[in-house]
């Protein structure tokens, strides 16, 4: 359960990345900008942001998974 919770953010980021790729696949950013349509640029910039989030979330998740459970926290949860 703990592992799933920790990996949730990278998994969501990865799903968002795939969705944005599907959205951007047939768009032409340059052509859209020249005709005053900003949506494809927003999609591509969002893709950059999501990819960055994915890398950061991956690092954070690896850290959380590798870190031993905090004994004090565990004790707090067990206390009545």
């Amino acid at each position, binding site marked *: 359960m703990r592992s799933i919770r920790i990996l949730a953010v990278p998994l969501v980021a990865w799903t968002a990345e795939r969705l944005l790729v599907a959205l951007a*696949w047939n768009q*032409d*950013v340059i052509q859209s900008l*020249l005709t005053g349509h900003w949506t494809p640029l927003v999609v*591509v910039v969002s893709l950059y942001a999501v990819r960055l989030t994915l890398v950061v979330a991956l690092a*954070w998740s690896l850290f959380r998974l*590798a*870190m031993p459970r905090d004994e004090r926290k565990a004790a707090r949860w067990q206390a009545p």
Partner: protein
Amino acid sequence: MSSASKTNRRVRGLLLLLATVVALLVAYLWAGAGADDVFDGKAQAQTPLADTVAARSLAHGDGPHLSSASSRLNGQAQVAIDQMTLLGLGQVVARHPEFKARYLPAMEAAAQRLVDPATLTYAGERYGRHGLDGPMPTTGHAYLGYINLGLGMLRLLEPEHELAGLHDRLSAMLAVQLLRAPRGMLETYPGEIWPPDVAVVAGSVGLHGQVTGTDHGLAGWAERFATCAVDASSGYLVQRLASGSCEALDAPRGSGTALAAYALGFVKAPLSRRLFAALQVHSRRGLGGAAVREYAPGFSGRGDVNAGPILFGFSVGATGFALGAARTHGDRDLFVRLYRTASIFGGRVDRGPERRFLAGGRLGDALLLAMVTAEPST
């Protein structure tokens, strides 16, 4: 603070550092995945982007792809897309002849658009007629170099193609102009001299020489051209000159230098290597990537249609074209680093059998295909 708590904090810090290193390593490996194979010209590394570019060439409708208010921008972008499509697919087929049947139809479609005067109506607006509309012009029309370079690549694969006669006439006309010009310059449009365009003209004549065995005698031209257009202190090519003189109207720029270094690879002139050496000096390598400075030291300016966006002094145009120059001159380290940069900032995406660079659109994909498949200059 107890020693156990201190140790715990140290372990956490170490783990966080380790996790960050692993995540950066993942990004580094993803961005550079296949870069060495692309540099080595392996088929499986070249065909995903080639398939994308070929499919678009065949699916192209009527008129230019771009539809802005500027006929110059629309026409020039279309010429660039079709020329780069021809160069990129042609370079793939030249290395892997088994793909000729797969890519030749897309190359022919691109060539037919290139030679259609309706593709670049702006030339007609400036000169009164497009250079391919009627008899060959005797001066100027350097934009024809882009068309001629594309035709040369088609001719390399199909020596007896129906456009071979036009390719011969165009090359002869452009070669005469290069050799006749005291400073080795041609006007692209009336009153406009762009040395990178002239370098493409020379490259197209050089490729014609390779394909047909004709010696156009461009060695002397390269010296005159360099004396007039290469900035002595930076080694960069000046982007624009005043017509009829060597007076600079724009700065020495990385985008034009990198395009010229690639194009002049077809001439086999030492000038191409000299320009590439300047790109090596003005590129910055770090964190596994690399980028090329747009303006020579002491100059500054904004991004434009040639450079694209400029970030911290490094431009998309200079960095993208430098890929071609790096492969032409065998600099694997710079190529791989530039490829990582292009993958991250260009938004590289692999989906099924196709590869695209989402930030560059149709033009960016065609351009990158031509650059990453550039053949070594021997």
